[in-house]
């Protein structure tokens, strides 16, 4: 007898679908925490990049700093994994965007009022307009890009489905070679991939949808663990190699962490996909974890609010000057 014909199994399956896997929800919390850790390094009043090699520098630049971008990848992978589960229509996509927009609008207005009450010098006309139109004015890049992605998602899903497994696989391989290998090992080769842009999400969606639709068991626990270790090893090795070079040249010190600058960089992708794979293979349920996970977006919105002193949105002038190489600018953003 097929499993789905059993009413008890059917009820259990429905219950499992309705109850979120807390392992994934815990990963959402970890992702938000990783973003704050990056913030601790990148948006710190103390410039770690100008310091000589030390144990603390390696931990901060090699592990904590790239972890923020891993957090962004994880945030998106979790959403994408469930979004590609089925094809939806534009109405469902807009409804999702609307639910998200309410939270974004709440924080843009509330944080602007707080800044207005405490330090008006931080307010600019753009920030005031952004308080009312946070998404369209790109107040937080992640939410803007994600909402644009949500609107495109129904069409992307149909398009990717119609490719079929073989063509979809080739598309993924071409994208990985272009962006995570070609453009994922140095900061000055990008193959037109743009930071803080919806294209990052489209790239990740192409990969995650292939993974989910055709080879859900592609990354086993051992491979996932190797991915995470390899990612952090490459990142740490780049700090160890590039720190003496940049300090000797006395320029481009922020290139020490170039492998953790963007979501599509190879170490960040390896760690992100590895961590997600490990989490999805583990199942447990906790109401507390699931409840806390619903508030993770707030961590991003509050800590990355542009007018906050030293926030990600407020890049320091020295960072901008020292990271401009070959016309490609790199700033500390989440």
């Amino acid at each position, binding site marked *: 007898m097929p499993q789905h014909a059993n009413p008890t199994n059917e009820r259990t399956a429905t219950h499992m679908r309705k109850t979120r896997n807390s392992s994934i929800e815990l990963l959402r919390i970890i992702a938000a925490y990783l973003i704050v850790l990056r*913030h601790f*390094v990148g*948006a710190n009043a*103390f410039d770690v990049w100008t310091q000589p090699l*030390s144990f603390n520098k390696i931990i901060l630049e090699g592990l904590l700093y790239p972890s923020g971008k891993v957090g962004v990848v994880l945030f998106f992978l979790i959403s994408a994994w469930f979004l590609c589960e089925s094809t939806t229509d534009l109405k469902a996509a807009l409804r999702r965007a609307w*639910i998200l927009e309410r939270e974004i609008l709440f924080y843009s207005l*509330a944080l602007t009022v707080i800044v207005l009450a405490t330090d008006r010098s931080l307010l600019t006309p753009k920030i005031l307009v952004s308080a009312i139109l946070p998404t369209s004015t790109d107040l937080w890049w992640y939410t803007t890009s994600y909402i644009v992605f949500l609107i495109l998602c129904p069409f992307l899903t149909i398009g990717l489905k119609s490719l079929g497994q073989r063509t979809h696989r080739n598309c993924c391989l071409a994208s990985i070679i272009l962006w995570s290998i070609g453009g994922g090992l140095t900061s000055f080769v990008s193959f037109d991939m743009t930071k803080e842009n919806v294209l990052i999400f489209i790239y990740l969606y192409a990969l995650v949808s292939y993974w989910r639709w055709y080879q859900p068991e592609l990354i086993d626990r051992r491979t996932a663990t190797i991915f995470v270790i390899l990612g952090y090893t490459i990142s740490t090795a780049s700090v160890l190699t590039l720190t003496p070079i940049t300090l000797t040249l006395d320029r481009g010190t922020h290139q020490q962490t170039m492998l953790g600058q963007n979501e599509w960089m190879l170490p960040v992708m390896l760690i992100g996909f590895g961590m997600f794979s490990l989490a999805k293979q583990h199942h447990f349920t906790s109401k507390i974890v699931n409840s*806390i996970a619903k508030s993770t977006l*707030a961590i991003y919105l509050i800590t990355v609010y542009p007018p906050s002193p030293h926030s990600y949105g407020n890049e320091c002038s020295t960072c901008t000057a020292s990271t401009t190489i070959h016309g490609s600018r790199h700033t500390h953003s989440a």
Partner: protein
Amino acid sequence: MFDMHGIYDNPWLTAYALGIAALTAIACIAIDYIRRALFTISIDRNPGKWFNNLWKLSTKKHNHNNQ
């Protein structure tokens, strides 16, 4: 927002960074619980009502224009 002047050379810097980041995240989560409570007693009483009304209005107009 963060400042590690004076603590950078401390062997406990990593623990300090992990702790400060955890406290920041906890504070943000606490703030969001207040936001969620406010939403529960206000706009979440009829979730999706505004959106559905807007959607109905726009599709009605679209259908009317097509006729």
